[in-house]
């Protein structure tokens, strides 16, 4: 489900006090941020590829109807089936029917955010079909009945000791005295348990990182190989993907794949990138007998051509999350929505309505790092601002927020008043701070000063300095 429990302020306070989470979040900075910078440095063409990838996605979006029709035709030519799903409910119904038609009791799943978005696991389990996540992180999240907290590292918020405890509970049939001290122990146990699921599954469901119109192909990337065992062993392979995943050609997919892993994990390329076209061919040694693609709209067509059109260019690399100071402080779950970080703060209101997600675009300092690292240069800060404007226009902010903003607007439109006020404020703050130069408490900003001191302003205001320098 897109919106889980949107209570950002309360969640954020809890996240800040969660020492395990804070320890885990340090890994984001140590790992992904440094590795992306190194990968970018190794590829001098990186920024040019970003421009090209953006152009590819925007071109596809502006011709989306035609590419969808062509893609659909190519899938049919290769023996596969395309199903359009206007809403999440439609998608669940279609997939449930396909699973029932296949006589499915056990379904294995590759990692798919769209599958989370439509709440597929709950739906399948309600119908008596066991659905098993096979990406290691997703498997652990599912075991804990949690949503993923990061696009590409779903359990970045957990430490290995916590996971070991989960494994002892979930794998109760295994020897109680076994060692689960290291990440390697945990991976080995999950590998053995999930291998049996792969072999027994009736249907395999994967997402898609890209759909290629030229050949009617779905593309999925993993490092684990789980999506491949998911889709090559069962009788039926179902792909669930949203309509904006389309690109025109194999060449276009290359440009995007050169950016995806480098931006996300800092790898040159993911270990596995798999291109699937239809069901198994005559004479093929293995592969699924049936191949279905479910194309989800669920609010995306309403974003097309409008203010939030560019958000549909997102390739879900996770770079904006990794570089976001807010995400790094509170983690993914605090957002209370499936899509988190800057991309989630723009996308979620588009999918569920700003009235239900107004805290998300407000939880940003608009520092701009997300746009700086976005592989398709989505103007995330200006989109966050656009949501704030809509939120204001709809009368959502509280009386206090509105009054403060109105007073601010009144002053900024009157430069003399503004300069007089800012000059006076500076003097008052400096006097309040005294010799220490720091303010421990500040009226109306108690929450801010609770966890840090405000350095008192020193010297002159910007405008005073500017006036002096231009005169001198």
């Amino acid at each position, binding site marked *: 489900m897109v919106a889980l429990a949107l209570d950002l302020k309360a969640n954020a306070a809890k996240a800040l006090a969660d020492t395990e989470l804070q320890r885990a979040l340090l*890994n984001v900075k140590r*790992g*992904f941020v440094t590795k992306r910078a190194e990968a970018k440095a190794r*590829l*001098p*063409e990186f920024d*040019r590829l970003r421009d090209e990838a953006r152009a590819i996605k925007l*071109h596809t979006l*502006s*011709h*989306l*109807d*035609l*590419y*969808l029709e*062509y893609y659909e035709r190519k899938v049919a030519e290769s023996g596969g089936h395309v199903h*359009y799903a*206007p809403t999440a409910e439609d998608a669940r119904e279609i997939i449930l029917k396909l699973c029932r038609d296949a006589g499915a009791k056990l379904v294995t799943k590759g990692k798919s955010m769209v599958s989370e978005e439509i709440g597929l696991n709950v739906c399948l389990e309600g119908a008596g079909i066991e659905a098993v996540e*096979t*990406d*290691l992180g997703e498997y652990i999240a599912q075991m804990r009945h949690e949503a993923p907290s990061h696009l590409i590292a779903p*359990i970045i918020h957990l*430490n290995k000791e916590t996971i070991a405890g989960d494994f002892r509970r979930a794998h109760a049939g295994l020897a109680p005295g076994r060692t689960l001290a290291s*990440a390697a122990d945990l*991976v*080995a146990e999950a590998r053995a348990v999930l291998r049996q699921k792969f072999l027994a599954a009736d249907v395999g469901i994967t997402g898609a990182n890209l759909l290629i119109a030229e*050949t009617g192909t779905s593309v999925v990337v993993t*490092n*684990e*190989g*789980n999506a*491949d*065992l998911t889709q*090559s062993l069962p009788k039926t392979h179902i792909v669930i993907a949203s*309509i904006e995943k389309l690109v*025109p*050609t194999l*060449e*276009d997919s*290359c440009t995007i794949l*050169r950016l995806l892993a480098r931006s996300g994990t800092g790898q*040159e*390329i993911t*270990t*596995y*990138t*798999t*291109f*699937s*076209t239809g*069901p198994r061919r005559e004479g*093929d*040694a293995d*592969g699924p007998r049936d191949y279905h693609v479910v*194309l989800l709209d669920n609010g995306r*067509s*309403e974003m*097309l*051509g*409008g203010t939030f059109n560019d958000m549909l260019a997102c390739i879900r690399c996770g770079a904006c999350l990794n570089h976001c100071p807010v995400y790094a402080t509170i983690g993914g779950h605090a957002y209370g929505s499936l899509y988190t970080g800057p991309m989630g703060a723009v996308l979620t209101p588009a999918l569920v309505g700003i009235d239900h997600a107004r805290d998300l675009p407000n939880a940003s300092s608009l520092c701009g790092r997300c746009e700086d690292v976005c592989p398709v240069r989505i103007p995330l800060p200006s989109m966050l601002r656009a949501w704030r404007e809509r939120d204001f226009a709809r009368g959502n902010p509280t009386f206090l927020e509105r009054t403060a903003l109105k007073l601010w607007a009144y002053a900024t439109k009157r430069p003399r008043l503004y300069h007089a006020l800012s000059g006076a404020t500076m003097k008052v703050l400096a006097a309040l701070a005294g010799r220490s130069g720091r303010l421990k408490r500040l009226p109306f900003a108690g929450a801010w000063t609770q966890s840090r001191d405000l350095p008192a302003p020193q010297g002159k205001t910007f405008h005073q300095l500017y006036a002096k320098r231009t005169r001198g």
Partner: protein
Amino acid sequence: MSVSEENRTKVLDRVRDALGVHAPDMWREVNVRHRLVTHPSGTIPARSLGNHEACLALFSGMLASQGANFARVHDPEGVVKAIAGYLTDLELPTELRISEEPVLVTLPWLLAPRLKQVYGAPSPSDKVGLSRAIVGAAETGTLFLVSGAGNPTSLNFLPETHIVLVDAGDVVGSYEAAWDRLRGLYGEGTLPRTVNWISGPSRTADIEQTIIRGAHGPKRLAVVILDG
């Protein structure tokens, strides 16, 4: 209209409405057709534009950096010896599940009597798999493996050790050059059921971002380049 046709019409109509397309527009269609037929390349990284020897060096270097082993040999005898040596050195099982590629079937297996060859679809108990890559892209040390009659896709993922043979002549610079090879073999706009890009052994960093090899797929990837 059936439900599935209704759904299709609904989504496509919404897309057209949002884009302001209210009647067929020839120029849009020409634009799309042109792109699909000409499939123009974007920027190809300069690193992959070197001569063949440079590409081979880049290919091997990238594979090594991603945790794959590789050997460069000059005749089919060398392939068998390299495989036998690799399995012996690491004390790995010596039974090989082999895809029914003629190149692999006809290798001089008698030179390594300790190796046992099993052909056909893989079974979950297979420990070592041997496949052939149809082409390799040097830019990231990426092998292209295709599904087909003698080529089960699951062989690339089930065994713990995966050995891949690639002909040096099939190593090209970029992904685009590799796709051109496949277009030459399968035709424009057509791909085999599965094309696997493989760029190292299976790995995960989900637990505390610690990299562990052998998440679900092979723990080891060994690449033999046949240059002769």
